[in-house]
């Protein structure tokens, strides 16, 4: 019997499991979930993992509460800081960073992410904040796409604006499921459904035709150890 947990906690745990020891992860605005995932991975199976938090450039910060802002004062005091221009250099050179955690207003069947607009850019129905660092996605080892919004408005056949290309997208994590990419078609494929979620639920929440393998496993629920450690890192309950 698995302990009770929230979908957001499961997302952080699933993301943590995907990080390998010694990898370097970079994350952007609203870093709460990837920050939790990185710290959890370090605590459990990847002690040599490193992570860079967004525009602050802080490396491996361990704030007392999970930050919801990427340049917050609580991040100051990470053991190391890279001024943003240097993060930009490392993102561009392509052989230092292993994982880019990204999201978007829209995410499409090929893993492209859009943070600019819904509809025509000149006359958008919704204007988003802008592309920030997403053009670097194809330069970093692999892209981990995550979003709290698994619905047909977010998951679309083709994004209205490509802020970052999905070439290296390997894993997509949402409150409903995990997805990877079919090696032949490079289209998003259902990889696992979270406990209590059916394949039909995921299909209905996705605005394009997902590749469906013959059988879809259930996402392994959090172990007691994973959940206990995650909650130790998140005393304020930001993921609950």
């Amino acid at each position, binding site marked *: 019997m698995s302990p009770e947990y929230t979908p957001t906690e499961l997302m952080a745990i699933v993301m943590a499991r995907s990080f390998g020891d010694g990898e370097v992860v970079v994350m952007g*605005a609203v870093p709460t979930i990837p920050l939790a995932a990185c710290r959890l991975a370090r605590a459990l199976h990847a002690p040599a993992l490193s992570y860079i938090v967004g525009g602050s450039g802080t490396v491996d910060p361990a704030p007392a509460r999970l930050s919801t802002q990427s340049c917050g004062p609580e991040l*100051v005091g990470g053991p190391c800081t890279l001024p943003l221009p240097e993060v930009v250099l490392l993102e561009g050179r392509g052989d230092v960073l292993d994982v880019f955690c990204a999201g978007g207003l829209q995410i499409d069947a090929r893993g492209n992410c859009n943070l600019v607009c819904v509809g025509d850019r000149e006359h958008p129905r919704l*204007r988003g*904040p802008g*592309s920030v660092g997403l*053009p670097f996605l194809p330069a970093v080892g692999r892209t981990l796409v995550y979003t709290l919004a698994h619905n047909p408005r977010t998951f679309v056949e083709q994004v209205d604006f490509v802020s970052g290309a999905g070439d290296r997208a390997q894993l997509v994590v949402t409150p409903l499921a995990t997805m990877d990419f079919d090696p032949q078609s490079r289209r998003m494929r259902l990889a696992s459904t979270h406990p209590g979620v059916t394949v039909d639920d995921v299909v209905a929440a996705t605005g394009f035709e997902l590749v469906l393998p013959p059988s879809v496993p259930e996402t392994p629920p959090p172990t007691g150890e994973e959940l206990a450690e995650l909650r130790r890192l998140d005393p304020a309950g930001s993921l609950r």
Partner: protein
Amino acid sequence: MATRLLSPEEAVAELVPEHGVVGVGGMHATAAPMALVRELVRRRVPVGRLVTSPSASLQADLPIGAGLVDELVSPYVGFEDLGLAPCFRRAAEEGSLRIVECDEGGLTHALYAGAGGIPFVPLPPGIERTDIPAASPGLYKETKDPFTGETCWAIQAIRPDVALIACLEADERGNVAFGRVPFTDRLLALAARRVVVQVERIVSSAQIAAHAPGTTLPAFLVAAVVVAPGGCAPTSFPGEYGRDEAELTAYLAAARTPEGFEEYLRAAAG
């Protein structure tokens, strides 16, 4: 020319040209030079092109909401966990703001180029796979690597007429200590033709010298220092004060309509 110690009113009136290229520092809701930005808005200084850090919040949304900005160069305007930027969003959706679509890497390299007298910078691969260059043909151009003959994309240098940034301390000569993570604000200052620095306080030259090397700006690059304790509020200044979430949330609620925004401005003006 000697650095001048000015009030926010004097600095904006004398050093921010009308219809110019204005660079504004601070990342997200951290270390935004709000004392200077508020004065720019109060005086209704028209801005030809507003250039921000790779991520901006209130320091961009306020002048955009006031209708002062013709053209925006910014890779991100938003409030992270608190929500989208209401005035930026409205202006974009109404089509009343020219947005030069750009990205964090490109902007950073463009400021570096501006700082070093380099006309343009070729960019690492990735940008060509996005819709950004096609949306901003005036800023990004396709070119050839003269060494390999391969196609690559380049971004033009950016040189603001004036940069407004917020740092911790200055001495009376105008030497400045960042006292915080500099983000891209050092590049912005180095790229600008003129720099106005808002600081928390004036300290002795010995205290400025005590800061770690590379965290200071020499007086000869600083046109004016403006002392504004707490002047980044409601954004934060690391080590001094956190962001004022209640105030930012109140702003986001008020600015949801143009009327609410105007009322917010009137109330803020006292």
